[in-house]
């Protein structure tokens, strides 16, 4: 492929490499440091966070629990005790504000894997015809609830790659790498952004949680857009861009709950069309400071 044709080329040329990778770098830093925080306990004996993404205890005081897991537990017929409920509420509240799928781009370890598969896929120029509808993830979400209810156990946890990956790194993988390999190959050869963009019920759950999130990517400067398509090419959820970018009479806010607030579109846009902001239109939107409004890197 022609050197100047890769998405972000123009942005790098105009803004410099660092500025054109700012959010990507911050995101990787967030993903890796969260992993590191969980790992310094078992590796070095420094216990900052104990447990894993399913449920954890930070500095022996702050309980955090995956609210999706609590719902499955309820569906399976168990009422979790107070600590778990409190932990679940804290997590739910957090993602309610910063955008549910910020979990996907800033925390989830599988994202590292599927992003890698995507990059490789683009590099190798792989094109495949399999097109899954994006709503399949919501069917998956429903299915995980139904099997929890019918089997009376949190059956999804038997195969959930998100917790397998995270738990695997902290507690030992066993054969979990097989499931991860399957996802990687699926994303690489079978379906573009297949797992995270179409199937993962965890992402689907968090998208619902963040439907009304405060933190949003905005295309306030959409008039500047010169249709270079770079944002479409990097966005893991392309379909969310069009309404905000091209809808003349719609709000410039990317309002789809499936925007992962990854900020990659902000990075690659040479014309700085996008910025982080809040969902509400303010009369004085030009003064909104993107750096202040967006600090999902603190999300655990």
């Amino acid at each position, binding site marked *: 492929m022609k050197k100047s044709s890769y998405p972000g080329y123009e942005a790098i040329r105009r803004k410099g490499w660092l500025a054109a990778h700012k959010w990507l770098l911050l995101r990787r830093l967030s993903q890796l440091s969260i992993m590191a925080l969980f790992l310094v*306990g078992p590796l070095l004996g420094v216990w900052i966070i104990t447990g894993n993404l399913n449920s954890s*205890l930070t500095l022996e005081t702050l309980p955090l629990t995956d609210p999706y897991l609590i719902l499955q*537990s309820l569906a399976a017929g168990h009422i979790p005790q107070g600590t778990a409920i409190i932990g679940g509420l804290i997590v739910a509240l957090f993602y309610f504000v910063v955008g549910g799928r910020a979990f996907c781009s800033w925390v989830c370890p599988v994202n590292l894997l599927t992003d890698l598969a995507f990059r490789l896929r683009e590099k190798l120029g792989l094109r495949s015809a399999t097109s899954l509808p994006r709503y*399949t993830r919501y069917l998956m979400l429903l299915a995980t609830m139904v099997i929890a209810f*019918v089997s009376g156990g949190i059956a999804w946890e*038997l195969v959930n790659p998100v917790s397998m990956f995270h*738990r695997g790194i902290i*507690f030992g993988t066993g054969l*979990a790498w097989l499931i991860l390999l399957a996802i990687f190959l699926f994303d690489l050869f079978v379906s573009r952004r297949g797992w995270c963009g179409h199937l993962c019920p965890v992402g689907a759950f968090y998208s619902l949680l963040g439907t009304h999130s405060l933190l949003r990517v905005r295309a306030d400067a959409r008039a500047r857009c010169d249709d270079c398509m770079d944002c479409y090419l990097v966005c893991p959820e392309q379909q969310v861009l069009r309404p905000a970018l091209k809808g003349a009479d719609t709000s410039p806010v990317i309002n789809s709950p499936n925007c992962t607030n990854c900020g990659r579109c902000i990075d690659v846009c040479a014309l700085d069309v996008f910025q982080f902001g809040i969902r509400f239109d303010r009369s004085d939107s030009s003064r909104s400071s993107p750096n202040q409004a967006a600090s999902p890197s603190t999300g655990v």
Partner: protein
Amino acid sequence: MSSSLTKPGTGKRNDSRRRFLLELGRSATGVTLLSFGIGLYSRQSASMPANAIRPPGALDEGEFAAACFRCGLCVRACPFDTLDLARLGDGVTTGTPYFTARDVPCEMCDDIPCVVACPSGALAPELEDIDQARMGLAVLLDQENCLNFQGLRCDVCYSVCPAINEAITLEHIPNTRTGKHARFIPTVHADACTGCGKCEHSCVLEQAAIKVLPLKLAKGELGRHYRWGWEEKENAGSSLVTPDGEHRYNLPSSKRYDFAGEGLLESGE
């Protein structure tokens, strides 16, 4: 909805609707098949290997699958590294805590840190006295290799038991092999054994003769109509059936009975 499918002449809209329904049907079928797979797998994984023991206070296996978050906080709380989180392929439901008594038994901590750490209630917080834990039940499985059963005085499982003389006692019976000695039989009592596995862990044999089993596997159950006559008699104050006659012996001439506790003996002894 389906009627509009068959109506001719609605052109494009009809087409895209058909495509949508087809797509929906396809992905729904895929998801359903996957769910069946997971459902079946969850059934299969519900049966634990017999040597995998749950931590103290664990709910019944069925409930445990619904309650445990697979977070490993119990594992981290255990000061003796007794517990482990099952990995995919371990045979125990992936991500749930268990221990293998032969490797590392539960030391029965007074403050039960594993239960305290559990956020979900999968390890029931009602368990406040570790002596009340019922992780499993020790069973002396191999009488042919247990040293005490042969009349030797190993006694190790007995001496290591944290609830010695309650959970496990040594019951003596005559040693018919030597004819002179007693055998001290390690005998586990379900009303006090916590299933900690110290006995199994310490058994000196290559393969432990005494093993902790899940309660469901270890325990028998009386027929529901069945009553122990002597207990009923004691409750009632007298025999509930015919009055007890005086017991009469009818021994072969070569045998005699020693009432002092030796039991049945050869006449000459």
